[in-house]
């Protein structure tokens, strides 16, 4: 039975790009060793400032791997990462269940809205240019200007 996991690790800023790819290949090799497991997605976030110092590092290269695997596989990866000095921080999270829940709530919400719209005699889908404010989905920016307290309770 495979489950979906997310692995994020922070590579020391001293590491070169080659070393970062090498780490990815090492993890890939472990994943290949197990049967029926795969890396679904790899995402290099690049170099970011750390919110606090880890060791004496102030920066780090973040890499996200979405892995379809088993508990044993993640245990092995976790063990290997722990002995790798180049990786200064890592986090493994199981995501398949939460993603299923999110999907379900989304589906339920759109079903409700479609049912209500049809009941009001409107087409099931939202038409462009409809509603008071544009759909907030795309322009999230307005929600982050909360340096002042008032922004909080909109």
């Amino acid at each position, binding site marked *: 039975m495979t489950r979906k996991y997310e692995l994020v690790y922070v590579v020391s800023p001293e590491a070169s790009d080659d070393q970062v790819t090498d780490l990815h290949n090492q993890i890939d090799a472990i994943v290949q060793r197990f049967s029926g497991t795969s890396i679904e997605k790899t995402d290099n976030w690049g170099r970011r400032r750390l919110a*606090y110092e880890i060791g004496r590092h102030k920066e780090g290269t973040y890499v996200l791997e979405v892995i379809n695997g088993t508990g044993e596989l993640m245990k092995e990866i976790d063990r290997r990462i722990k002995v790798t000095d180049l990786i200064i921080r890592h986090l493994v999270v199981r995501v398949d269940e939460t993603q299923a829940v999110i999907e379900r709530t989304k589906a339920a919400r759109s079903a409700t809205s479609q049912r209500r719209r049809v009941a009001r005699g409107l087409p099931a889908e939202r038409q462009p240019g409809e509603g008071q404010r544009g759909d907030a989905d795309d322009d999230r920016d307005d*929600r982050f200007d909360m340096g002042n307290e008032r922004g909080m309770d909109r």
Partner: protein
Amino acid sequence: MNGRKSFGAKKGGRGGTTQGKDGQRRPMFRRRKVCKFCSDKIDDINYKDAKLLLPFVPERAKILPRRISGTCALHQRKLRVALMRARQLALIPYTAE
């Protein structure tokens, strides 16, 4: 209001009334707080989305309480988990110096 902490003037304050100039008591205006995640329909409170989480960690980097932010119980629980994961990855701070 005298003697009490003067939080009353702020949004998050508890004071129900305030003393007018002429000594009359009138209800204080306070906008109703709504859960940001409910109103914006954000289902996924993700630990990777530091931009989303940052407003909930004020200066001292403590988690903003529900009482102030107006987040509903369900979303505050999810938010807390996300914040704690993000902290581990040094995306948001544990504390400010």
